[in-house]
Structures are given as C-alpha cells and as structure tokens.
C-alpha cells in the first residue's frame, strides 16, 4: 500500500523522471527486439518496421502505463489549470470584465447585507439572547424608555420575567491629569449584568449591591470595556481598584466587560458603565432617578424559563395600567406623552437599534436593489461566457478531433470557470470590505461616530460567492456540453463561424433583454431618489446655512452658578464677536435639525378661554435671529437688556403667532406656558420671526416659542452659534475663548449647519447616492453586455455582411443591420422594465419627498438613458460592420 502511494506521489512530483524512465524502458525493449530480428537475418529497416507493427502503438502503451499509475486524473486537472490560466491571460479584456463584474456583485451584496445584519439582525452576544425582551413606553406606535418610578413599580409587580434591567447611554467626560476627554459611557441597573448573564473579562461586573452607593466602601463601582482597557489603560491588569473621575464624580473600576459585548444599543459601544446610583451622586435630588417625567430607562428583561412571549405580553397588559397610574403623580398627568402612553413588549434578541429603526426601510430597499444588481451581474457573466465559448468553438472542435472526450472538454471549461470565480470572489471580498466602510460613514452622523462591528458576514459572503461561482461555471460548461454534439468533420471543413449562428438558444435570448429591464428599474429608482433628495436640499429651512457653526459646551461641572454662569456666557460671546473673521455670535439650546428633540409644552391663549395649544420651545441668546439668519417679521430680536429681573419676554414664530393670535398682531400679548416647572407667570411677546425648521426638514415647522437665555439662569444645555465667512477662524476663536474663560472644559468637535442639514437627511442622501451608484453600475454592465453581443454578432456574420455588400448593400445599411439587433433587445427589455418599475414604485413611494413615484418625467428620462446607452454600446460594433471589406470577408469562406 505504501509502495502504491510512493509510486503515485513519485509520478506526480517527479513527472519528467518517470516519463523518461518509461520511455527508456520501452526503447530498450524495442531495441532488443530489433537486434533479435537483425540477428536472424532481417535488414535493420525491415526489423524496425516489423517491431513497431508488432508492438502496437508505443504511445498507446505509454498511455496505458500512465493510466495504471493512477495519477492521470490529478495530472490532467493540473494541465487544465495551466491551460485555463493561459486562455484567461490571452483574453485580458474578457477576464478583466468578468472579474470586475463578479467583484461588484459579490462585494456590494455582502456589504449591504453585512450592514443590515449588524444593525437589524445580529443577536446580542449574551447567553440565550432569544429569551430577552424589550419593554417600552409611549403613545401607541412609539417605543421609548420608561421612567424610574415606572421601572420600579413594574419590577415589583411582574411575574413573567426572571428580572428586569435598565440601561441608558450617556456620553460623559473623563477627567484626568492630562486633560479631559469625551467618552461613551452608560448607566445600568445592578440587575443588568446578572440578567444578561454576562461574565467579566477581568474582575467583576456590576450587580445588585452597586445600586446603593452607600454600600461600597470606595465609592461608586464602574466597569470598563475591553477595548477601552486596552486602548486607554494599555491592558494593565492593575487597573482594577483604580479610581476615575467622570463628569466630576469619582468612581472605582471593579471589572472589565468582555470584548464581544458592546452594550445593548447596536451602534453605541460604552467605554465605561456606571450604576444609576452615580447619577444620584452627581445630581442629588434632581437626578432623573427620582423624577416621574424623566424617561430614560431603556428597559429589557429575560423571560422566565417556560414562559412564552405571548404569555409575558398578556402578563404585562394586566399590570400595565396599575403600574402607570402609580408612577405618574399628579403634576405629570398634564403631559400628553406621559398621559397617553402604554407599556409594550417586543423581542429583545438584537438589543436596541435606533439607527436600525431610522435606516431599516432604506437598507432593505437597498438590499433589493443590490439583489437586482446581482441578477444583472450573473446575466452579464452568463452572456460573456456564452459568447466566449461560441468563439472558441474551433478550438474545441480541433481538440475533440484529436481525441479529447466530451467530459474532458467540459472539465477543462469548468476548471477555467472556477479559476475565474476564485479571482472574482477574492476581489469581491476586498470590495465588500471597502463598501462596508463607505456605507457606515454615510450612516453615521457627523458628530456622533458610529460603532459597528463590520466584519463581512461569513454566511452571506459564502452564499453570494456560491451563487456567482455557480453562474460562471454552469454557463461556462453548458455550452461545451451542447456544442460538442455536432459532427466534427463538418465543422472543420466549413469553419466554425457559420454553423452556430443558426441555433438560437431559447432561454438565452432573454438574457440581455432581462438585463435591460432590470437596469431600467434600477435607473428609474435611482433617479427618483436623486430628485427627491435634491428637492429636500433645496427647501428653505428658515435660517442661514452657509457659514454657521455650532459649538456644544458642557458647563455643568463648572463652579460658577446662577449669575456667575450667565456672566461666563456673556464673556465668551463678547470674545467671539470681537474675534476677527466672526460676523456674529449667539447662544442656542436646540440646534436646528440636530439630534435632540425640542421640549414641548402647552399654553392657554389669552382671552380665548381654557383651551390649550401645543408649543415647542427653544432658548436662545441675544441677537440670535440675526446670527442664524431667521427673519424678524414684527417686533424685535432679543437683546442683552432682556436679563433676569427685567420683564419676561418671548418671541414666537409665525406658526405660533397665527395659532395663538390669528388675525391680530402678536406683539404685546402674553403667553403662559403650563409646564410643570412654571418658569414665570407669563411672558410678553416682543417679536415674531419666520418659521424655521428645527425638528425635521420634511415637516413644516411647528408653533415655536423662543425664550431669552439670560432670563432662565437654571437652563442647563446650551451651545454657541457663530456666523462667519471663515469657519476655521471661528473655530480657533472659540477655542481661544474657551481656554481663556473656561479652561478645564473639554473642547467638543464643532459642527457646521451644512453638515447638520446633510445629516438630517442622511437617509435620503444614502439612498440617493447608493442607488445612483448601483443604477450606474447596472447601466454599465448592461451596456457592456450589449456591446459584447453586438461585437460577437458582427464577427460571426462577417461573411454574411461581406456577401451582402458584394451584392450591393450600402455601408449605412450594415450599420442599421447591427443597430436593429440592439433595437430588438431594447424592444424586448424595456416594456418588461416599465412593468417592473411600476410595480416597484409602490414600495419606493413612501421614501420619497413630495413626489409621485409614477412621475412620467422621471421615467421618460430613464427610458431615454437606457435607449441612449444601448445605442452607444452598439456604436463601435456598427462601425466595424460598416468597415467590413467584402473581399476579405468572402475570402474566409
């Protein structure tokens, strides 16, 4: 047995030697035989002739010996490989296009699906994630966090879960000797890690005792992420027990979370996790922990063993009413959101994915688009392969005549196609990596880096590669199977070209028209998204976009309070206004089109009875409207005289003015907000400004009331806004002022209004850009396919063209001869495409802004584009047909 293996290996690796030996052995035999005959009296030539006849075929004997050696198969496969490589190198155009097509199809599909997987489908990396559920609160149809009292009451009364956990993401600032740096942090209840059943990488994770800060001897406990541990603390195991200062409060690191766990929010990876008790340490009685109107607990729970989802839902429904009633004390009943909210249950396997919710529909639409692109790619590959094999008929026929069996020919084509698939798959993997990163950059907001685990999903990658490879291999091998059936003699005689053009393979006739149809769909969709996004970008937002920059600040932990804090703001504003390059500066609490929402309240209309109307609130500094470019329609802007102690004033936007005081001037009237924190008895309206869109570009601006910053000294959040021609100048001016007046406060990255605007329509931009990209790709691929088809036709029918020309046809007639083919393809494909587009537009319609998906102008443009591409692709082959010299063509006959 080993002898056998040894011989086989030797045959494989020392082929030359083995061959020489075989040759030598047989030669020896032949010579001895010749000698024998010569000795018995024959002439040498006679002897040699006789010996050769007697022996039979020497080559045949050699071949049989080789067969016996049993490595024939491997050898011939290697031979096929070498041959395949050579053939691929000989037609670089085909190889390049094929590999590129494969790469595009595989890469884009993998990238898009990987993103979808990461945002929407991937389970949290904890044991038994299917047992997890999310408990949310809000008016029917929304799902938001719970408030602390709700959470506590629910925990007391529930019976379907082993335990509940709450989690809140909270960006904070880590202060160290070297300076302050922003970190991604999160709060968790003590029940979080035990309910998730997570094991620490080092040390311990938070548990129930951490809910009561008094129990810990060294202050509040904290855990850090493994990535943060490695990146910031250098993987030093001595980090346990070290204390850190976060947002001004001290905490002690007690453990490290494993790398595979990145919080329960898909796109936010906390570097430090603290117990909610930490917020109490920071804010005392005003902490959200005690307030019934502060909904900040993202709540999850683990189902008890044996309890099903439906059962838990029923259990929740029975106790929800009671829980809510007990947790909403008197004053908070007035807030609509709290009053109308209910508790709901949803599966929690994938955690919480706000990005997924925002982008979900777009991503799935995108997946369908790249799926269509994949079909086009496969169709293109198929037609490329088919036409190539058609052109190699002659070679196949010759090889068949030389003795190659059909299986051998088929196998060789399969090997060649596999090589092609491998190259394409490799390129596809690289491309998918690049495209994934591109997608994520589109999806993230400029000031909020997104953390996404971007490994291309292995399952999808394999699936897509398999699909592409199968296409390539099947279409490469099938023609060989059918081609070799004909009479080789006839083929060799009459030249390969003519025989095949007669046979029209029924299914393949629809390949190219199918591609045209799908390309039309993709192009139309791309145009729809592009136009829709264009419309969005052209909306007048009600404020200036160019030259506006926002600087967020967090003065919370500064020692100044009250009047001193206001003074700080004033000093910063003065410094900014005087800086070179800065035209104007002010303060604003709510950034237009920014991430945070706006506070809402209600106000009764003066003199119009007890009816309350809805209002959105913003708090701005002096000269805000001038800075932001919002026009003042009546009255005035806020000035520095609107200070604390002076008459409380406010400014309304047009919508609010019309809503509260229809038909009259709002100036001088009074409005009193019904917020639970009564800020003041009422304010006098001193100005009316144009509507400005703060919440969303697509919706009209809601009635908004603006309060002057100086009159609300306890107002916490705020940022600076500057208007300047030169953005870098504004940024350095701000940095300088911050360092001068508030030296310990970290400098947070600023954001321009332009970026903010673009971020707010991030989804639309994503869809527009990507669908244009894929639509363009589809067009390109289809054009290439058409070009290939036409070229091949011209080559095939050159004799026929020559004949026609010799018989008197004009050169221009030949051009139409080619273009007619293209027209036929388009005529078959475009109606299909139109039908598909109309079907598809229903789904796309909801993603568009103020446009009908059936807008005929767009579809006309798409049609014209396809037709133009079709004829452009046929142009070169048409010219070639025109240039055919009848003499040369006929000579080939």
């Amino acid at each position, binding site marked *: *047995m080993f*002898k*056998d293996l040894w*011989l086989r290996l030797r045959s494989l690796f020392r082929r030359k030697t083995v061959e020489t*030996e075989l040759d*030598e*052995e*047989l030669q*020896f*035999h032949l*010579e*001895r*035989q010749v*000698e024998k005959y010569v000795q018995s009296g024959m002439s040498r030539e006679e002897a040699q002739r006789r010996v050769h006849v*007697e*022996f*039979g*075929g020497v080559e*045949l*004997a050699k071949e*049989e*010996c080789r*067969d*016996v*050696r*049993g490595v024939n198969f491997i050898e011939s496969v290697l031979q096929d490989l070498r041959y395949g490589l050579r053939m691929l190198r000989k037609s670089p155009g085909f190889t390049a296009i094929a590999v590129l097509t494969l790469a595009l199809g595989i890469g884009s599909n993998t990238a898009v699906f990987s993103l979808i997987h990461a945002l929407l489908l991937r389970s949290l990396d904890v044991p038994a994630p299917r047992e997890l559920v999310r408990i949310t609160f809000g008016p029917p149809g929304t799902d938001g966090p719970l408030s602390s009292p709700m959470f506590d009451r629910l925990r007391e009364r529930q019976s379907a879960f082993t335990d509940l956990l709450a989690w809140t993401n909270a960006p904070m600032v880590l202060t160290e000797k070297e300076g302050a740096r922003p970190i991604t942090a999160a709060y968790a209840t003590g029940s979080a890690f035990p309910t998730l059943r997570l094991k620490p990488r080092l040390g311990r994770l938070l548990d129930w005792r951490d809910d009561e800060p008094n129990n810990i001897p060294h202050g509040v406990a904290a855990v850090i992420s493994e990535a943060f541990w490695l990146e910031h603390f250098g993987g030093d195991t001595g980090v346990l027990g070290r204390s850190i200062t976060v947002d001004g409060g001290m905490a002690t690191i007690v453990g490290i979370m494993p790398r595979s766990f990145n919080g329960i929010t898909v796109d936010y990876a906390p570097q430090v996790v603290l117990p909610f008790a930490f917020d109490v340490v920071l804010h005392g009685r005003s902490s959200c922990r005690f307030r019934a109107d502060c909904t900040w607990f993202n709540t999850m729970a683990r189902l008890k063993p044996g309890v099903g989802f439906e059962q838990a839902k029923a259990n929740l429904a029975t106790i929800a009413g009671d829980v809510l009633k007990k947790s909403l004390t008197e004053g908070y009943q007035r807030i609509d959101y709290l009053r109308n909210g209910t508790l709901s249950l949803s599966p929690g396997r994938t955690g919480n994915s706000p990005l997924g919710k925002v982008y979900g529909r777009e991503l799935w639409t995108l997946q369908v688009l790249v799926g269509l692109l994949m079909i086009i790619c496969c169709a293109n590959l198929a037609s490329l392969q088919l036409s190539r094999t058609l052109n190699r008929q002659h070679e196949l026929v010759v090889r068949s005549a030389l003795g190659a069996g059909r299986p051998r020919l088929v196998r060789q084509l399969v090997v060649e196609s596999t090589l092609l698939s491998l190259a394409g798959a490799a390129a596809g993997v690289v491309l998918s990596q690049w495209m994934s990163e591109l997608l994520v950059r589109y999806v993230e907001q400029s000031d909020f880096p997104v953390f996404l685990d971007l490994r291309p999903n292995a399952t999808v990658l394999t699936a897509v590669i398999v699909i592409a490879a199968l296409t390539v291999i099947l279409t490469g091998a099938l023609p060989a199977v059918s081609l070799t059936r004909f009479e080789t003699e006839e083929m060799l005689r009459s030249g390969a070209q003519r025989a095949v053009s007669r046979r029209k393979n029924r299914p393949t006739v629809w390949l190219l028209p199918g591609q045209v149809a799908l390309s039309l769909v993709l192009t139309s969709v791309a145009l729809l998204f592009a136009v829709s996004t264009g419309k969005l970008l052209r909306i007048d937002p009600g404020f200036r976009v160019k030259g506006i920059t926002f600087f967020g600040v967090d003065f919370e932990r500064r020692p100044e309070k009250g009047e001193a804090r206001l003074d700080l703001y004033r000093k910063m504003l003065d410094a900014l206004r005087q800086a070179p390059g800065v035209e104007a500066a002010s303060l604003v609490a709510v950034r237009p089109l920014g991430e945070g929402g706006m506070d809402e309240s209600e106000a009764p209309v003066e003199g119009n009875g007890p009816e309350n109307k809805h209002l959105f609130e913003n708090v701005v500094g002096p000269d805000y409207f001038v800075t932001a470019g919002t026009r003042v329609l009546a009255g005035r802007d806020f000035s520095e005289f609107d200070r604390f102690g002076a008459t409380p004033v406010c400014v309304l936007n047009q919508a609010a003015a019309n809503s509260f005081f229809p038909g009259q001037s709002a100036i001088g009237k009074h409005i009193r907000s019904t917020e639970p924190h009564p800020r003041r008895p009422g304010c006098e309206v001193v100005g009316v400004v144009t509507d400005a869109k703060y919440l969303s570009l697509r919706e009209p601006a809601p009635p908004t009331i603006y309060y002057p910053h100086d009159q609300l000294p306890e107002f916490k959040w705020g940022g600076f806004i500057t208007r300047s021609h030169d953005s870098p100048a504004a940024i350095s001016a701000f940095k300088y002022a911050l360092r001068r007046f508030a030296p310990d406060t970290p400098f947070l990255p600023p954001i321009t209004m332009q970026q903010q605007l673009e971020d707010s329509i991030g989804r639309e931009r994503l869809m527009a850009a990507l669908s244009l990209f894929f639509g363009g790709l589809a067009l390109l691929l289809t054009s290439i396919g058409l070009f290939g088809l036409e070229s091949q036709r011209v080559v095939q029918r050159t004799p026929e063209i020559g004949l026609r020309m010799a018989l008197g046809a004009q050169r221009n007639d030949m051009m139409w001869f080619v273009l007619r083919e293209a027209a036929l393809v388009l005529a078959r494909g475009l109606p299909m495409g139109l039908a598909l587009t109309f079907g598809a537009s229903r789904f796309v319609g909801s993603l568009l802004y103020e446009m009908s998906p059936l807008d005929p102008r767009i579809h006309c443009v798409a049609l014209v584009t396809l037709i133009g591409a079709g004829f452009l692709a046929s142009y070169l082959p048409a010219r070639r047909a025109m240039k055919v010299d009848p003499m040369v063509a006929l000579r080939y006959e």
Partner: protein
Amino acid sequence: MPRIELPQGTLDLLILRTLALEPQHGWAISERIQQISSDVLRVQQGSLYPALHRLERRGWIKARWGTSENNRRAKYYELTKTGRRQLEAEKDAWDKLTAAVAQVLGTA
C-alpha cells in the same frame, strides 16, 4: 506452430511465475514465456508493460534499474514476498480451474 491468444488475466500469472526464478527485465520476460511455452504463447507486446506497472503498483513485484547483458540500462523486476504468496494462490486457482474444465469436457 499455431499461436494461441493468451486468455485474459493469465498474463499476470505468467509474469509472476517467470520472475519466480530470477529477476529479469521486460523483454527477457517476454522472451522467456515464449521460449518455455515452445513458442505457443506470444505475449501481446503492448499489454506487457502496463501489466508490469500494474503488478508493481500492487506490490507483487519491485523494480530497480541495472545494467543488461549488452551493457545497456534496463529496468529489472523481481518478485516480492507478497508476490510470491500471490503466485502460489493464483497457481492454485489456475490448477483447480483447469482440472474442473477438463472434468466437464471429459464427461461431456
């Protein structure tokens, strides 16, 4: 003397038997078989070498290169231990077969 075609499968047996006496190269084996059978059996030249290689693969004979009688390089084959055993087994089977056939022919 009329030449009789070698029945299938007997070539292996003859080769093994020839090599039982002493190691030989392919041509010598062919000559020897012809000689001993008084020229009745003519080995099909084209099938000799595939048979030799097959036997070598099976491990019943082994090969080495040596110098021949006329000072040329030649590949010599010799019987291995397992080959010897195989020879015994096949000879046994052949004897039984021929005896049985003879009996049938004799009584018919």
